């Protein structure tokens, strides 16, 4: 039997069930429109302002660093896959280890630079700094 | 072993170095850089003497020298340039002799300039000596050139220097315009020369003068039916006709530089320059360059009888034509100017009629006696406080005897009086024209007749000049109390006077024929050298290709030689005698009125300037106007149209750069899709 029939059936079922459930419930439920129902859920608080507020830049900085360094680890995967078998096939430890050490070393230089240039510091926002100085005075 | 040939580049470089020194350091040096120039040309002279001795075989066996010094374009493997453009040296009897002449005259002119320029308190001396140095250097570079392109480049340099020197007194009115005229007229000839150089390259793929792969050798092989495939003729002409065209193109430059009819008009005007410069220009450098070029590539000209005939005819005509104009001139340098034109006409006549040796001979003797005459005239001009009018002179004989006797020697040579050098060389020129004319080329006889007639006029105007200047009674106060001249004027005059007397003895053809003695030294000199560059080879060529053979009058060759010599001597003496009877009187008067209306014609130089000005002004202007209309209307219209279309489309094209990056992305995608469609359809990806 063609495997695609099974996949197709699965898809049909997967799409059909939620649509069916929503259809049934809309048929059964009573319709009582009320403002509180359509309001944004904020744990019972009354929402104020828009959702589009400015976040501190540091959120993004850390996120960026995370993205970059996280993805770099992807490149270590192939190395880990062959590490053991390479050693078993008689490649010297140095030859197997050196490339990865160099790779990590380069990342470390980058991280060091980012650190020294204040990318990982939780720098105070101007507002926070101002508040702090006001308190001291 | 280090020989003379290793120092040949120095012959050229020394004057060039003096040019640099005079230009940049001249104002800090005593005499305005003159000493640098004198030292440099003296060094060049010594080296040239050494070179000549080497060529003659005195110092070893090597007697010729050909060396490529620098390949400045082409010649790399796998490059698209099919030709090698090189600088190289070619030292053979002809060029070494010319080196000697040029360096000698240049040296003497430098010395003379001390008297003519320094002692007269001229300003701008560094500029003057810089010009002289560069002038000498370019001429020497031209002489040693081993290919036509290099020759052309130095030829142009010579022209440029003449422009600078003739216009030396640029604050006056006449010299700059004379300089401009000299430059433009010779440039006019040089355009043809340039086209000729290109044609030579296109035809032969080389412009070398000497060797198996040289263009005269290739041309000869092509005409002889061997290796004709190496030669590309243009416009579908057969080799003979095409070579004639090429030869005539190069001849354009020669006619301009050597002041042959009809491009001679610049030369008399060039007298506006300082007199030593005139000496240098007329005796050894610029004007000689044209004739030298023909001699240099004579192996090529000898192959084309038409060109030879034209050369001979132009030469003969110029000789007569210029001589008649010299008859009526009032200014001493003007007379000399026309005599120069006339004498170069003789050389061209000789070259055209197969007298390679005769031409070279006359080139040499003329260099000496014409330099002498100009320097002598310079001496007179110093004495006369820069008044050049002969009618204001007279009686200078007693007051400046050195100048007088040297000038007289030069005049005798110029007039061709036995046994001065001019007699021998002019006689040989006429002899060659005569025998070859008799031998089956009657055209040459006409050229010969004109040359012969010119001898009479030469004798006349030469002695008219001598008598008016030196004899009789002083006609002005200045002539009565002339300004003295010093050793630096007299020295060069003496040296040149000796040469003007004796230079002819190296090639006394009639005497040799008469006595059977082996005294034709110049014949022997030019008969050796690189194969293909010898006088013997040339006479074979003229014989084979131009059918020049020797015909005789009564008495065989000897008789012909004697008759020819006697006739020309007789005519010269007749001319001189006429001058004597008219002008060697205490109070000479102008006899020009007796010429009637011919006088006006002669005074006005046959209206040559007028017709050329008319040509330049009216005809050329008319043509130019038409061309201008065409240019403005059609060519410019097209060009402007194209450029405005370009700019317009440019301003349209740049509009696609909208500045909005989304549009860029869209256009980029569109472009990619368009390429995809084109390539896909073409490559059948969609089927």
């Amino acid at each position, binding site marked *: 039997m063609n495997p695609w029939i099974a996949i197709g059936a699965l898809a049909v079922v997967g799409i059909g069930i939620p649509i069916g459930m929503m259809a049934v419930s809309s048929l059964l439920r009573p319709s009582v429109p009320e403002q509180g129902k359509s309001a944004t859920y904020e744990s019972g608080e009354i929402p104020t302002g828009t959702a589009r507020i400015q976040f501190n*830049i540091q959120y*993004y900085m850390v996120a*960026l660093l995370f*993205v*970059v360094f*996280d*993805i*770099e680890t*992807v*490149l270590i*995967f*192939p190395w880990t896959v062959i590490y053991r078998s390479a050693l078993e096939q008689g490649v010297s430890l140095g030859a197997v280890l050196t490339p990865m050490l160099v790779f990590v070393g380069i990342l470390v230089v980058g991280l060091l630079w980012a650190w020294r240039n204040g990318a990982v510091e939780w720098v105070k926002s101007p507002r926070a700094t101002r508040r702090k100085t006001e308190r001291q005075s | 072993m280090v020989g003379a040939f290793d120092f040949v580049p120095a012959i050229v470089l020394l004057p060039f170095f003096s040019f640099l020194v005079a230009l940049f350091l001249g104002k800090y040096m005593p005499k305005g850089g003159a000493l640098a120039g004198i030292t440099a040309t003296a060094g060049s002279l010594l080296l040239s003497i050494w070179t000549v001795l080497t060529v003659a075989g005195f110092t070893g066996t090597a007697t010729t020298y050909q060396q490529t010094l620098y390949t400045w374009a082409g010649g790399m493997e796998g490059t698209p340039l099919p030709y090698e453009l090189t600088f190289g040296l070619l030292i053979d009897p002809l060029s070494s002799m010319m080196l000697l002449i040029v360096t000698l005259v240049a040296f003497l002119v430098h010395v003379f300039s001390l008297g003519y320029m320094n002692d007269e308190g001229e300003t701008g001396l560094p500029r003057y000596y810089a010009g002289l140095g560069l002038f000498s250097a370019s001429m020497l570079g031209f002489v040693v050139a081993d290919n036509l392109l290099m020759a052309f480049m130095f030829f142009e340099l010579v022209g440029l220097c003449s422009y600078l020197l003739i216009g030396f007194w640029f604050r006056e009115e006449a010299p700059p315009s004379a300089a401009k005229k000299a430059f433009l007229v010779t440039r006019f000839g040089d355009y043809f020369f340039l086209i000729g150089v290109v044609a030579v390259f296109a035809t032969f793929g080389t412009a070398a003068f000497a060797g198996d792969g040289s263009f005269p050798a290739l041309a000869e092989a092509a005409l002889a039916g061997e290796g004709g495939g190496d030669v590309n003729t243009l416009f579908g002409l057969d080799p003979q006709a095409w070579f004639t065209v090429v030869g005539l193109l190069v001849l354009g430059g020669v006619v301009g530089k050597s002041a042959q009819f009809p491009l001679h008009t610049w030369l008399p005007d060039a007298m506006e320059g300082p007199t030593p410069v005139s000496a240098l220009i007329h005796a050894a450098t610029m004007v000689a360059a044209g004739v030298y070029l023909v001699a240099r590539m004579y192996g090529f000209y000898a192959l084309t009888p038409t060109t030879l005939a034209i050369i001979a005819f132009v030469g003969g005509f110029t000789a007569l034509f210029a001589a008649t104009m010299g008859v009526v001139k009032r200014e001493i340098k003007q007379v000399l100017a026309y005599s120069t034109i006339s004498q170069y006409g003789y050389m061209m006549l000789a070259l055209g009629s197969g007298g390679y040796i005769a031409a070279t001979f006359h080139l040499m003797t003329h260099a000496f006696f014409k330099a002498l005459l100009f320097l002598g005239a310079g001496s007179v001009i110093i004495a006369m406080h820069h008044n050049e009018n002969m009618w204001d002179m007279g009686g200078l004989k007693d007051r400046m005897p050195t100048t007088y006797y040297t000038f007289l020697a030069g005049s005798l040579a110029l007039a061709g009086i036995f046994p001065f050098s001019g007699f021998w060389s002019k006689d040989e020129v006429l002899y060659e024209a005569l025998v070859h004319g008799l031998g089956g080329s009657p055209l040459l006889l006409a050229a010969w007749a004109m040359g012969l007639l010119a001898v009479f006029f030469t004798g006349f105007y030469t002695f008219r000049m001598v008598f008016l200047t030196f004899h009789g009674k002083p006609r002005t106060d200045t002539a009565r109390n002339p300004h003295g001249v010093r050793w630096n004027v007299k020295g060069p005059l003496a040296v040149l006077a000796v040469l003007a007397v004796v230079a002819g003895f190296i090639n006394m053809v009639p005497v040799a024929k008469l006595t059977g003695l082996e005294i034709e030294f110049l014949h022997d000199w030019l008969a050796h050298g690189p194969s293909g560059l010898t006088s013997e080879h040339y006479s074979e060529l003229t014989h084979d290709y131009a059918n020049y053979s020797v015909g005789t009058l009564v008495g065989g060759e000897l008789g012909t030689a004697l008759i020819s010599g006697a006739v020309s001597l007789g005519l010269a003496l007749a001319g001189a005698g006429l001058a004597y009877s008219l002008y060697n009187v205490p109070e000479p008067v102008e006899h020009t009125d007796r010429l009637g209306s011919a006088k006006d014609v002669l005074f006005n130089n046959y209206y040559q300037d007028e017709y050329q000005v008319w040509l330049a002004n009216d005809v050329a202007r008319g043509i130019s106007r038409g061309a201008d209309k065409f240019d403005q209307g059609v060519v410019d219209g097209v060009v402007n149209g194209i450029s405005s279309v370009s700019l317009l489309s440019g301003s349209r094209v*740049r*509009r696609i*750069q*909208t*500045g*909005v*990056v*989304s549009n860029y*992305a*869209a256009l980029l*995608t569109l472009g990619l899709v368009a390429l995809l469609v084109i390539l896909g359809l073409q490559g059948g990806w969609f089927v």
Partner: protein
Amino acid sequence: MVPPQYYLLLAAAIFCIGLFGILTRRNALLFLMSVELMLNAANINLVAFSVYWGNVTGQTLSLFTMALAAAEVAIGIGIILTLYRNFGDVDVTDAASMRW
């Protein structure tokens, strides 16, 4: 086994969705996301044909592509931040002072 054309079609579809996003969106971040989509379309091809041809070259390259994509995003975000600071918005059509 799924025939390879299907992967190609899937990849092409995702590529075109990404391209569509680039051509229609003016928000720089959405532009970036669209580019990521296109890169992932390439990844699908690479992984799929790595299996098809039976070598791991494609898979390895897909890892590199992901890393490059991340680096590109990092730099892109940085540039978009300076864009926001200078132009006050992340609309790519705002920055159009240089043209022609």
